[in-house]
């Protein structure tokens, strides 16, 4: 009956043709834009000039859509032509959010926190790695850069840590396919259209095994409908060291050598140094070969000479420099880095689809001489639109050539990074004057006066750690609209990454004149102390090769059902996933059995010539089925649930199947309560709960020993085979056919199961004044139970390490985001402001039974650990022995304190407060953008501080060079501690620094808080008078990390740095992180 009426109504309606034009915001026609009449089959596509004609009747609604643009609906009344302006997705990101599996949703439908960062926001400061362009821009997102080198590791975490030993890093998905986090460094930031952050596991449950840590969904540019568009960008940036540690320039080199150490009458002794003792005062005089700087002051009258030796050549000629500190003598080692980036992209779109082809080249010369990182990227992406069948896909190839300085050498076996050799030089040496290491005899290995650490310039040219990486990622998504309400989708993604990483240290045979006093007689050592050559007159050629490759094939097939019934609409997704990951590592060393530490691998083969190699292979397979249901009610209430069942190859067949569940709801109260809407208020309340898993069987293992970071290259092993530990062949076995294995001393609990994360979140979004003010607040709580931990059992159990399910950690936090668009608007002056603030907190509820402290990084002077009842992770350091009041106990005779036997808790190392401020001012064609980043609530240990104090190089070690009474110290008198008022330190004065103070780590722990001006950009859009070829031209002055403010106690380095790279053990820096840098330059952007 209803139908009959409907038919009748249609029959009597007046139909008419209507013409129109579809253009974009800039007025350009959008070719191929789809124009449909709501509720009818079929439709038309706009012509090349954007025009179309369609037959409608009054009251019809036109739906105009085009790829890359937001869809628009226009109600037709009595007009005969329409002009449709489609806004690009960029500008309307608030309206579409890419969620799990690439499913696009209206943000109203989401019951969880998300954030979208557009291409423009990411690249406004011309960052080489787009992840650094995320820092400070999204609440709840912690981007931590391991260092400022040319190839830094980045740790990306959302909402803090959940897993004690497992991976806490967010999953990265590129165009629907998960990739290894290392892949982000190979991406050209300008190829990225937008990045969607799904912060919690609620949003990500559908991704399965890697979802617990949130997901970063990267969508690359696929072109947009419209005419040919060519874009060229050049960015030229300089980079300089911004902060060196505090170094003293007052005192000269001396390691405590006194009278008699070197008798000037000894014919073999001490060329270039006249005497070690000032006969008048008995003061230790400068010792040219020392790395320690406990000598006389440079301005001292005690030293009667105006020069000091710094080198000697084969003829015995000595090079002297003035006996005075050189301004920035050590800092001058660093170059001004230079990076140049050129990008070219071409895109075109029409009714059949679109494409985007781009190429880019980046040459980045770092601040360490000779270091460079070259990246080339070629990318082709496109879409195809054939009525019911649509496809999108692309392929990106990138190569990286990373050329870094390898480890140094002292005595042939002590491997040190170049920064160590920079800081262990005295203030009278200007490292910039000793660059010609192969021609200048004083700059080479044997002529260099410093007996302990070589000229770092030598290391730059003779120790190399190189990498060539090739990365290919391809993906294809096919959609078929089977029925008006049923769509099927198939997606396949493939990622292959190979790395070839040779490293070497050149050999060197010292001339006899430079042999040290420890060498066989006769001794020649001209400086009387032993050069590096002491005992090691021959440095062997050491070479190493690491090859790694991994590939990842990921396929998804799913259907999407969209149905509407009365007030309800349903979207049901169901599908399956298969993922197959393979990893291979090869390692070779020519010195494996003599010099280089051996890898602990059951595949290692020792060759008779002292070399060795190994081959390791890992496989990981995942199968999954999933389902996702969204129910909407009247467009203002949404209920969403997801379910996934994973089968993981790396687990035991009995436990390898497990499920993820997620449910969330969203209520747009302002849509329901029209009074609110009428007042320009937007109010959304949302909440969700999920149960996900985290398989933390193993972190990536390292391979390689000569590489620049000393810890090798990470190879993904996925935790494959971990639950079946390898048996070790007994000594001598096999004998003939008789095997003789011993079981591994590590074992795994039977039925080891994944970690379970129980996560809930609740939030609201409030828009006022038609969203001019937008406030978003989300609170979350995650309880991670059943963690996978390698405990240390009693040896009486038969083993020494036991992987078991234990431990519980709770994380919670509040994420706040306040957007003011505009904050101030005065005529043509616009000021937009976004403030993000995150307060996060976590607590280890309990650990392995029988223990409260579980180290995640072991050490003798410090540890980073999980401690029951405390925030995670905790830093523990060696401190002095103290009385119950916390005062340092000194010896009643020597006046010196001693280190305590056990380590002391120094505080948590994960930031608890993160504040980001993004400001954007525009005036006519000018725009000034900046990002400020503040973090606090964490402690950091500066390991390098102890090295600097040990050697008397630090500015702090310029003090206390005479005996003194340790402030606030106590002595023990008859078993009671009484204040020490008069017992001064004893022994050689320098002993305080090298033997006492630097033996404990507590002085080097500081508040890790900082304020940073992350990004600054001043751009100008040059007005062009309808130039037929050049359509857009802009130029920008950009800068990164221009300013950093730290507590005055932190005199060492950038507290954001982490010696553990992307590992969990954040909280300390070492000599492997070179000083922080700032970058600034100019960017030119032209559109054709």
């Amino acid at each position, binding site marked *: 009956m209803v139908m009959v009426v409907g038919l009748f109504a249609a029959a009597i309606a007046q139909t008419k043709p209507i013409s129109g034009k579809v253009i974009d915001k800039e007025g350009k026609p959008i070719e191929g834009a789809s124009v449909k009449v709501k509720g009818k*089959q079929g439709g038309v596509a706009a012509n090349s000039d954007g025009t179309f004609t369609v037959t409608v009747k009054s009251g019809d609604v036109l739906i105009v859509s085009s790829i890359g643009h937001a869809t628009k609906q226009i109600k037709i009344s009595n007009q005969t032509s329409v002009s449709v302006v489609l806004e690009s997705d960029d500008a309307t990101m608030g309206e579409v959010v890419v969620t799990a599996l690439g499913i696009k949703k209206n943000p109203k439908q989401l019951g969880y926190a998300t954030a979208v960062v557009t291409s423009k926001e990411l690249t406004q400061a011309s960052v080489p790695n787009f992840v650094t362009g995320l820092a400070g821009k999204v609440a709840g997102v912690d981007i931590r850069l391991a260092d400022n080198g040319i190839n830094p590791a980045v740790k990306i975490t959302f909402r803090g840590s959940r897993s004690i030993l497992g991976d806490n890093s967010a999953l990265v998905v590129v165009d629907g396919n998960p990739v290894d986090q290392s892949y982000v460094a190979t991406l050209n930031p300008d190829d990225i259209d937008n990045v969607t952050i799904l912060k919690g596991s609620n949003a990500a449950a559908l991704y399965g095994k890697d979802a617990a840590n949130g997901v970063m969904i990267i969508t690359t540019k696929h072109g947009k409908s419209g005419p040919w568009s060519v874009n060229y960008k050049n960015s030229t940036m300089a980079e300089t060291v911004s902060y060196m540690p505090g170094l003293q320039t007052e005192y000269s080199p001396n390691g405590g050598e006194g009278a008699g150490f070197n008798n000037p009458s000894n014919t073999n002794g001490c060329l270039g140094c006249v005497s070690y003792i000032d006969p008048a005062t008995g003061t230790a005089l400068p010792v040219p070969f020392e790395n320690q700087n406990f000598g006389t002051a440079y301005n001292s009258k005690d030293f009667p000479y105006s020069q000091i030796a710094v080198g000697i050549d084969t003829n015995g000629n000595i090079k002297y420099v003035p006996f005075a500190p050189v301004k920035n003598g050590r800092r001058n080692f660093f170059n001004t880095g230079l990076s140049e980036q050129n990008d070219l992209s071409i895109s075109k779109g029409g009714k059949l689809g679109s494409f985007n082809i781009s190429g880019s080249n980046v040459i980045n010369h770092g601040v360490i001489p000779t270091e460079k990182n070259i990246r080339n990227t070629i990318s082709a992406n496109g879409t195809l639109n054939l009525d*019911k*069948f649509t496809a999108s896909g692309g392929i990106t190839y990138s190569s990286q050539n990373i050329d870094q300085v390898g480890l140094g050498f002292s005595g042939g076996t002590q491997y040190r990074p170049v920064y160590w050799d920079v800081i262990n030089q005295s203030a009278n040496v200007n490292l910039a004057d000793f660059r010609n290491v192969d021609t200048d005899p004083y700059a080479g290995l044997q002529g260099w006066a410093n007996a302990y650490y070589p000229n770092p310039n030598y290391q730059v040219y003779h120790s190399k750690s190189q990498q060539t990486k090739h990365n290919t990622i391809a993906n294809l998504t*096919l959609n*078929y609209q*089977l*029925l*008006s309400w049923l769509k*099927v989708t*198939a997606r396949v993604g493939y990622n292959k990454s190979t790395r070839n990483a040779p490293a070497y240290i050149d050999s060197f045979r010292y001339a006899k004149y430079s042999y040290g006093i420890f060498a066989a007689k006769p001794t020649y050592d001209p400086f009387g102390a032993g050069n590096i050559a002491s005992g090691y007159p021959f440095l062997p050629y050491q070479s190493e090769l690491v090859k790694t490759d991994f590939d990842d094939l990921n*396929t998804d*097939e799913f259907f999407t059902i969209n149905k509407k019934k009365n007030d309800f609409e349903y979207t049901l997704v169901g599908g*399956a996933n*298969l993922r*197959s990951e393979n990893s291979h590592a090869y390692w070779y060393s020519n010195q494996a059995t003599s010099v280089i530490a051996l890898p602990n*691998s*059951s595949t290692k083969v020792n060759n008779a010539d002292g070399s060795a190699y190994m*081959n*390791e*292979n890992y496989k990981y*397979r995942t199968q999954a089925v999933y389902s996702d249901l969204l129910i909407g009610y009247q467009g203002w209430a949404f209920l969403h649930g997801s379910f996934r069942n994973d089968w993981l*190859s*790396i687990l035991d*067949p009995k436990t390898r199947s497990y499920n993820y569940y997620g449910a969330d709801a969203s209520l747009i109260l302002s849509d329901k309560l029209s009074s609110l809407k009428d007042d320009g208020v937007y109010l959304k309340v949302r909440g969700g709960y999920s149960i996900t898993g985290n398989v933390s069987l193993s972190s990536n293992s390292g391979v390689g020993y000569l590489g620049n970071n000393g810890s090798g290259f990470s190879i993904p092993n996925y935790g*494959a*085979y971990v639950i*079946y*530990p*390898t*048996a070790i*062949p*007994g*000594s*001598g*076995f096999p*004998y*003939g*056919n*008789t*095997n*003789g*294995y*011993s*079981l*591994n*001393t590590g074992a795994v*609990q039977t039925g080891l199961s994944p970690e379970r994360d129980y996560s809930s979140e609740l939030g609201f979004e409030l828009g006022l004044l038609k969203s001019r003010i937008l406030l978003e607040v989300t609170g979350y709580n995650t309880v991670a139970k059943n963690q996978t931990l390698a*405990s240390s*059992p*009693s*040896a*009486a*159990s*038969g*083993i*020494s390490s*036991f992987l*078991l399910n234990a431990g519980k950690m709770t994380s919670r936090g509040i994420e706040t985001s306040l957007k003011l668009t505009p904050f101030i608007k005065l005529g043509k002056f616009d000021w937009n402001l976004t403030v993000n603030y995150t307060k996060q907190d976590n607590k280890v509820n309990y650990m392995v*039974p*029988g223990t409260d402290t579980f180290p995640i990084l072991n050490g003798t002077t410090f540890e980073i650990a999980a401690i029951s009842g405390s925030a995670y992770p905790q830093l523990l350091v060696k401190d002095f022995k103290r009385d119950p009041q916390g005062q340092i106990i000194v010896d009643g005779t020597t006046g010196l304190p001693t280190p305590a036997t056990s380590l002391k808790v120094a505080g948590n190392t994960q930031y608890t407060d993160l504040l980001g401020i993004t400001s954007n001012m525009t005036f006519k064609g000018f725009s000034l953008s900046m990002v400020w980043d503040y973090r606090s609530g964490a402690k950091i240990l500066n390991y390098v501080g102890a090295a600097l104090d040990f050697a008397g190089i630090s500015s702090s070690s310029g003090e206390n060079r005479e005996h003194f009474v340790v402030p606030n110290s106590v002595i023990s008198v008859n078993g009671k501690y009484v204040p020490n008022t008069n017992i001064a330190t004893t022994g050689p004065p320098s002993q305080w620094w090298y033997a006492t103070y630097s033996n404990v780590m507590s002085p080097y722990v500081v508040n890790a808080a900082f304020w940073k001006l992350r990004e600054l950009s001043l751009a100008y859009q040059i007005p062009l008078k309808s130039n037929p070829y050049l359509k857009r031209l802009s130029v920008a002055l950009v800068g990164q990390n221009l300013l950093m403010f730290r507590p005055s106690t932190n005199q060492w380095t950038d507290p954001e740095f982490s010696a553990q790279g992307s590992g969990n053990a954040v909280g300390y820096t070492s000599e492997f992180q070179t000083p922080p840098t700032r970058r600034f330059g100019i960017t030119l952007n032209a559109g054709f």
Partner: protein
Amino acid sequence: MLTNNNHTMNKINNKYLIILVSLLSVTACKKQLDTNLTNPNGVTSAQITGKDVFANAIQVTSGNITNSYAFANEWMGYWARTTSYSQSGQEQQENFALQNSLGDGIWQSHYHNIYDYNFVVSNSATGSILPGASAVMKALVFENLVDVFGDIPYSAAGNPNVSTLPKYDAATDVYKGLIADINAGIVKIKASSATGDDASDIVFKGDKTKWVQFANTLKLRILLRMVPNGDQAFVKAALADIATDGTGYLVAGEDVTANPGYANLEGKQNPFWSSYGFEVNGGAKNNNTYYIANKTMIDYLNATSDPRIGYLYDTTNGRNSGNYLGAVSTANPVSSLAHIGPGILKSASQPAVIMLASQSIFLQAEAAQRGLISGNYSSLLQTAIEESFRYLGLTTAAADAYYTTSKDDRVNPANGSYPLKAIIYQKWVALAETDALETWSEYRRTGFPDRTNPSISVGVSPANDVLPKRLLYPQSEYNLNSKNVNAEGQASDGFTVKIFWGQ
């Protein structure tokens, strides 16, 4: 009306569907998930069975017996050292300044050995002799642990799925448990049949009778230790079981040794030879130079005109003296110091010793002397000495001459009134350098060799010249299993706390 919808269906383009379906058809199967079961980088415990583990477990046990007790070789007067240079912890152990670290390696190695045997017990072919044999070997290792430490983790040990922090059991309970364990092993051995696993039995090649004889001998050793401080009814009942069984003990010629195929090749040498002997090319290993004869033993052998002196020690080139424990070579020129002898270091391919036949016969001699089993203790003692001579490379005739002509009560009980003295003294000589733990245990149990004539360790300050009664629990237990090890109370003392059978 309805035709409109049907019309849609007809328009489905088959071509695209085929593409979709072909992508969908990537098969999901169990085989893919099972990739984890095979590790290309090594052999996993899932890929091996008991027969792949047993031979090495035996090698480890024998290696522990001969190699892990250098300190006992010093304490029992067999070895001293040559140089003023001391290896890590050496001086402390020579001065009986016990440290927790001394027992660390023994603890770890023995328990991991037990863990390996447990694997053989539960992962062997049906009918295999290896589970029964492993039960016997495991009992031997546990017995050694009791003899070193006293109370030890036993019922909850060696199986991390049972406990990662196992509790300690009273030594007396462990001993009783071991008898039951060996009995269970004997049942399994008897029930076994010849299988392919016999090839991995590098001790008896699947000879069930010999395994049972060895098991009975081990039981006898444990039971004798329970006299007189243990449960005598239990001892009597257990001995009655052995008599009923009828298989008997190891007899003359039946040394319990293992040889998977030792040879003078790199990595293939007999473990004792490899540590205390010589390189493939003949050069002396560090330990061979480091350890030399202890004056205590040299003096005793000379005093009793024991022809074994030239076999226990390398006395060639006029090297006829030794150092006292803790003393270094200043008193005697190094050239005069005797080294480990050719009866102990026979060749790189010699079998590894687990229990010599002489030990079995000494045990029988003592049991006969105590009236616990039938037999003539004197003739058994003579046979035991013959076996010792035979093992070291001397003739039976030489043994008989030595035994019958000696006027010393440490050799022939006919010369004295306390037959046990000769039995334990002779065992002390017979087991020298191959099973020092056993002679240290027998010393602690019987007081022989007695400390006045001669003292077994001279060179230590007299006030401290008391042999430890046990080793301290290892530091790792205090770090990791603190609750259980601290429940042992006086455990930190190695001089007042004795093993339950000790004096």
